[in-house]
């Protein structure tokens, strides 16, 4: 299987040895390259996701979807991006100006920092802390601060209600998400994402013998909690169009609205990617023990294809849920988390601990 470390090492030797640059400049150029790669991957993936969502949503509703800009409308999201840049940025009279400008920074930062820690393929991995899972949970909650700031600083009743709902919802579902991820940490015995992926080389976590039962329950809990954390699907109360016009980002216009739009789609990708990494084996190919030939064939498919393929399946599931179920009410939402999901995740954690002790 192709290791992306070859590419990064090649760039390093190219800069250091063949161009003979001093250490400082080599590092500087490498960091700029990594930053540009983050930015490009982030923007391109968001554009693709927006197109895919609109197209799939259209098919669910028996429509054609975007089909005018480019063939099958594939340039639609680029046209939208240009359009959103050309819109006027309106500032509200009675808003808190500083917080109003600051809020998109938190939202974007929360999603880029999480995005940067994902293992996309073999050796294609920027941030790899030994507390990886903990880092993901910690950093992804930066977005909540951004949303609360946005709602509060706008000085508008709709945004305030949207932000409060969002705060309560995100904070509640974060617990279940953390406990679901912890279930796998108990099994893997490490929090480092690369190690967790490495340990799933033989079997993915959700197929792994008796441990598959708690792992699968945790996978389902994580998907539900992840949907709620991205404010999507049946959990889109913070921006319930029919009640709150647009929720916490009602007062944002032009590109400042675009930041929230971008972050929402990327958070969907990130949730799917974390689910893939932790439960579905990350970039590891599908292996069935005993089927030597089959395993060899699977190894020929590049790791990046595996990663994005599994993520795409999770994203499709998210879209399917979103366009199928009606929106919940805030009391139903919180009741569901605290009375059903939370006890199940606690019991599931103990079940996994029991399985690990008995094995």
């Amino acid at each position, binding site marked *: 299987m192709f290791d992306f470390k070859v590419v990064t090492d090649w760039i390093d030797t190219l800069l250091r040895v063949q161009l003979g640059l001093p250490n400082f400049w080599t590092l500087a150029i490498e960091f700029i390259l990594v930053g540009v790669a983050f930015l490009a991957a982030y923007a391109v993936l968001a554009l693709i996701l927006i197109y895919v969502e609109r197209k799939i949503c259209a098919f669910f509703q028996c429509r054609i979807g975007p089909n005018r800009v480019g063939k099958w409308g594939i340039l639609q999201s680029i046209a939208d991006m240009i359009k959103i840049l050309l819109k006027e940025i309106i500032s509200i009279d009675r808003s808190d100006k500083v917080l109003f400008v600051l809020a998109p920074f938190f939202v974007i930062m929360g999603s880029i920092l999480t995005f940067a820690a994902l293992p996309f393929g073999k050796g294609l991995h920027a941030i790899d802390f030994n507390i990886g899972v903990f880092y993901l949970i910690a950093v992804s909650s930066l977005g909540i601060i951004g949303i609360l700031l946005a709602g509060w600083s706008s000085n508008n009743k709709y945004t305030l209600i949207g932000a409060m709902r969002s705060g309560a919802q995100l904070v509640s579902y974060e617990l279940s998400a953390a406990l679901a991820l912890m279930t796998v940490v108990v099994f893997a015995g490490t*929090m480092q994402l690369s190690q967790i992926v490495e340990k799933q080389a033989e079997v993915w976590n959700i197929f792994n013998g008796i441990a598959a039962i708690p792992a699968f329950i945790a996978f389902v809990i994580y998907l539900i909690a992840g949907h709620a954390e991205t404010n999507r699907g049946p959990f889109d109360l913070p921006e319930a169009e029919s009640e709150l016009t647009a929720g916490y980002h009602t007062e944002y216009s032009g590109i400042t609205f675009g930041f929230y739009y971008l972050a929402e789609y990327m958070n969907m990708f990130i949730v799917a990617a974390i689910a893939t990494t932790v439960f579905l084996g990350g970039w590891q190919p599908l292996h069935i023990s005993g089927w030597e030939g089959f395993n060899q064939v699977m190894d020929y498919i590049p790791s990046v294809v595996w990663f994005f393929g599994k993520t795409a399946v999770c994203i499709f599931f998210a879209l399917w849920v979103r366009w199928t179920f009606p929106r919940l009410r805030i009391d139903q939402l919180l009741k569901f988390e605290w009375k059903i999901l939370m006890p199940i995740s606690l019991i599931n954690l103990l079940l996994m601990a029991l399985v690990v002790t008995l094995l």
Partner: protein
Amino acid sequence: MNEAFLLVAIVTAIVLVVAAYLIAKLVAPHSFNSQKGEPYECGIPTRGNSWLPFKVGYYLFAILFLMFDVETVFLFPWAVVMRDLGTMGLITVTFFIVILALGLAYAWKKGALEWK
């Protein structure tokens, strides 16, 4: 190296927002209208301020969240070394979780999870 990449990611996020904002400032039109600055509340004139004391129900959940979030922080170190601790670790943590579950049950019984 990880910390350096973390810094790179933070700078990337700031650059993305600032650059997009500056580009939009340059290319987007500007016009003044006194109506534009008003809060968007579906055409009805806004009454009063929005910075008010808010429904207490949300804060109850926030307090409950604090309790369980600290619990999660305590559980993570245990989760990593679970395999080495063996049966004793399982029993100890079961007590820990049961006490927390009692806390949840108490909040449930007191009606903190109801939406009134």
